[in-house]
């Protein structure tokens, strides 16, 4: 399942991962295979209301991509496009194209369930099932029809999520007895157990204390060699600490009908976004003058 075997990792940290001003169709040949997601002019509507407008950027393999921006700027909505979780919301509609390793995710023949087995998700609030720790991690493989080798998958996933040491002697206990930080790592283990190559994380640390947050951040650095990670975060320091590339979103507020539409302001190497952003709005946000 690991993608590291398929292509050599030529670039550890690309300088610009997807400047929206650059034409997305003309990246250099060397990096083409590294593109996991390519989104072009993505719009998300809830009914007739446009929640997100014209989002265009690429996400590269084995990178951590952070989506930052003020509340209501559509970061989570964008994130949920990548494993078609927006399908679960009635009246939600996505236009534009999102390709995943060269395939249009929104092709009518694509089964969202198949997509979600490859593109895992970790949610804002830890949401373990009211089942045992073991059953939580084994849930995804079982749903996919796997019956054998579950013990191994559970152990490996818990090890990857840096939780094995803490729970190995009580795998049969209820997951609800774990602390918030442990629960969130369990949710990461549960997502990993399905064997995805992308992890989408929707503010995974917002319900956690600083120590648990540090745990999760270390974990992200460790697992990024096997996965591509997209993380929505409210916490700019977190984005600066963990991500390779950052996309800054803001809300375009129309006062006449009081609607907010999320727009992508810029995408660049995280270092550049936080030190020398091209857009004034980004600078205002990252320096704390706005938002």
């Amino acid at each position: 399942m690991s993608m590291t075997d398929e292509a050599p990792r030529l670039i550890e940290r690309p300088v610009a991962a997807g400047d929206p001003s650059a034409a997305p169709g003309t990246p250099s040949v060397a990096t083409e295979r590294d593109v996991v997601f390519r989104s072009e002019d993505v719009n998300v509507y809830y009914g007739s209301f446009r929640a997100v407008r014209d989002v265009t950027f690429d996400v590269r393999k084995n990178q951590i991509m952070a989506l930052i921006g003020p509340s209501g700027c559509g970061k989570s909505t964008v994130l949920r496009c990548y494993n078609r979780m927006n399908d679960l919301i009635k009246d939600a509609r996505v236009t534009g194209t999102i390709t995943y390793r060269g395939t249009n995710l929104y092709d009518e023949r694509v089964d969202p369930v198949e997509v979600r087995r490859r593109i895992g998700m970790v949610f804002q609030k830890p949401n373990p099932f009211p089942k045992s720790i073991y059953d939580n991690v084994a849930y995804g493989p079982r749903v996919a029809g796997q019956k054998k080798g579950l013990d191994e998958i559970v152990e490996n996933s818990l090890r990857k999520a840096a939780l094995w040491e803490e729970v190995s002697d009580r795998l049969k206990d209820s997951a609800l007895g774990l602390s918030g930080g442990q629960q969130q790592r369990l949710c990461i283990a549960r997502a990993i157990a399905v064997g995805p190559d992308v992890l989408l994380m929707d503010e995974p640390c917002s319900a956690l204390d600083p120590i648990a947050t540090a745990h999760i951040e270390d974990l992200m650095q460790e697992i990024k060699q096997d996965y591509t990670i997209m993380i929505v975060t409210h916490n700019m320091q977190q984005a600066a600490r963990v991500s390779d590339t950052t996309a800054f979103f803001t809300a375009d507020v129309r006062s006449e009908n009081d609607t907010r539409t999320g727009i992508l302001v810029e995408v660049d190497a995280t270092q550049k976004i936080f030190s020398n952003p091209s857009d004034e709005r980004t600078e205002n946000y990252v320096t704390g003058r706005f938002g």
Partner: protein
Amino acid sequence: MTDTSVVHQELLTVDQLQIAPSRRHREVIIRYILLVTALVSVLVSTLIVWSLVREAWTFVTGVVWADTWGQQGWFPRRGLYDIPTIVVASLIVTGIAMVVAGPLGLGAAVYLSEYANRRVRSWLKPALEILAGIPSVVLGFFALTWIAPNIVGRIGKTTFLVLGAVILIGYAAISAVIARSKIKQYREGTTDPSARIGAVASIATLVVVFALALAWILNVWLEFAPNNAGSLTAAGIGVGILTIPLVASISEDAMAAVPDSLRQASAGLGARKRTTATTVVLPAAISGIVAAFIVAVSRAIGETMVVFMAAGAADAARWTDNPFEGGLTMTAAMASLASGTDSVVGEGLTFQSLYFVGLLLFLTTLSLNIIASRFVAKVREVY
């Protein structure tokens, strides 16, 4: 600015912070009025239970106990009080009612909670509630005049065997799931012998019930005779229809209480809707669903009008365990004794037998309701 600061610095007296005495009195009066209204219902219940117990005691002490067991049937005027006759009739009606209401009610609940969109929900839920509002006398009439000839009357010997097999297989499937968890419990309970005994006992119970049900179904099949007048089956189906909304609405409440984040987590792991419903939502809501079934059982046992009209016996009944024959349930026996011009006459203890059956019913439904409320409390503890 200076003015307000002066005001703030003034000292307060207790009077300024006091509640007006008249207002305080009003609070107290309202409190006691409400207390009295609450006490009235408690008092009424106590009086009812007391009158039940007193007359039932007369019956218990006066009746020849040997005659309440193994007689030909329930013939109060002749002094034959065969309690098993009416208890078994009640059980049959309740069992049939649950076979009807369980799958239909639970199916409706799963559909409403997991599948229906807002538009379908907005008319389907009220429609179910209308079903709950149909007076039971109307349903009784419907059961007697329509269900009995058109449904029960058309069940042939083969249909019955197929139905029986389906029910047995369903029961076996559910027991297999329970037994598996009990076996697991047994294996893990090496240090706790009481857990092992409990596990063995519940598996034994499941097996015994299965054997009894199998024997019963075969027996009924052997002496099968079609009947399109009132029968226990017709009454059972009627009562089942009556309890569908109950099962549906309590189960749906339990499923709606399962946080949406669990459904999202499940979908995010690549589960389809039916997988999410059966592996996440139903197990998480199981105590509420069990409570729904218990409440429905208790309602079915206590239901009177439908069984009185559609069960096919007037005021006395021969012993039967055949659901296609007419019978008299506990409730119907009471209703028939207490109605009509020659009510409550006959042999000396007829009047008191009514109270005894009433007490039996009361205790059954009371204990079922207590168990149900325990389960409901448990569903709240889960998250």
